[in-house]
């Protein structure tokens, strides 16, 4: 099963973000966004390969993507 993940880069890896992207792709990440200003990469990967992405040099965290949900518009508390 592919799942969506958010990958955060270490400070010293931001300058070579393209190298890290290549290594993540090699590790099975289908990259959707490379957010250079914040050093974060998003994409999807098969569940069995998530853990190995965390071992890629320059990666500090691989987190499952979350969804936020506002209360319905008619709610008094937003």
């Amino acid at each position, binding site marked *: 099963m592919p799942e969506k993940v958010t*990958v955060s880069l270490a400070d010293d890896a931001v300058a070579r973000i393209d190298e890290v992207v290549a290594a993540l792709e090699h590790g099975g990440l289908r990259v959707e966004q490379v957010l250079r*200003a914040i050093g974060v990469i998003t994409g999807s990967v098969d569940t069995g390969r998530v853990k190995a992405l965390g071992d890629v040099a320059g990666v500090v965290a691989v*987190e499952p993507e979350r969804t*936020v949900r*506002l*209360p319905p518009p008619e709610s*008094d508390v937003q």
Partner: protein
Amino acid sequence: MVDDAADGMTGRYLLVLDDDFLDDTDRARVAVQEVCGGERPATTREGAPAPGRPRLFPELGVAVAELSPQQLAAARADRRLLGVEPERVRHAIGLSEEYLRGFRDAAQFLHAQLTAGAVAAAQFGDTEELTWGLQATGVAESPETGAGIAVAVLDTGLDLEHPDFAGRDVETRSFVAGQTVQDAQGHGTHVAGTACGPLAPSSGRRYGVAHEARLMVGKVLGDDGTGTDADILAGMSWAISSGAQIISMSLGADVRAVSTAYETAGRRALAAGTLVIAAAGNNARRSAGNPGFVGVPANSPSIMAVGAVDPSLAVADFSAASSTVDGGQVDIAAPGVDVHSSWPRPQVTRTISGTSMATPHVAGIAALWAQRTGARGQQLWAQLVQAAQRLPLPASDVGSGLVRAPGA
């Protein structure tokens, strides 16, 4: 009539000059002279001045002067001054009879208040001119407008044809696949209105804080009110690279653990001179004994978490309290109950509650501070919490207190 002397005031004012006057006595002297209507200030190096003559302490960047009401108003709007305050009479603390008498009076006063039940509570309300939130935070008295500062609101978009934003230069981008930035939900139009709505709306009272700020609207939540980390982080990245000094995020998930991705984004935003401000969350039910907890992303140490207070400046029933995770504290509070702001046509305005409504008050006021002092990022954060009005409430609920506009 207030009797200044009886009130402990001398009738003079302390003028606090901007930091860049510290090394330049001549410029400081000219600035004080202009504020005081042409009278050349004496410096501390010249010995005791003639009575009534302004006095400059160049090594402190502070002057003391008598000001007419017109001069006082002009001084409060003067960008060269960080503050203008009445000078007070102070006494050395020793066991003089006068000191003991003061101590006795204060103790009697406190005793009377405690036995009488409570200190008179504040009670704000919307007027024809202003929302209660703009009154309580001093926005109405602030000479700043947010001009020259860019505020990015990441939410459900904006009603681009709303009469209160007609003709406004708004930079927009949708990060939600297949949807335009047009707000079909309402939440985004409400929070953008509080942060950056106009000085004179098409109908009703003023509700917007930074009415001359450049408004950037990133749609990261869809028309159904949901959004993913990927879209929200993409919106943050866009706002930082597009030069926003402030990012307002009235969104979050009820998750205790800090997200590395949001903390990384918040930290890199601060380093780039962008302050990220987020809603603490609405997961408390205080009346039922549940204080809730600050969720993602507001619980990131590098993202400012905003709690909500009501028109009596009590913490809102729903407003999440600090959690024990590193960064899980509420940093500041703002008006978040019965908040009147813009809503998509045809309704045009609506009054709702939430830490979502408190957050854009802080974002707009941050723009006023950024305009006044030039502070960015971490320095802007420090100014906001430093200037906040302390409330008689636990810091775990309201952080350093009620956000306060500059010059108020």
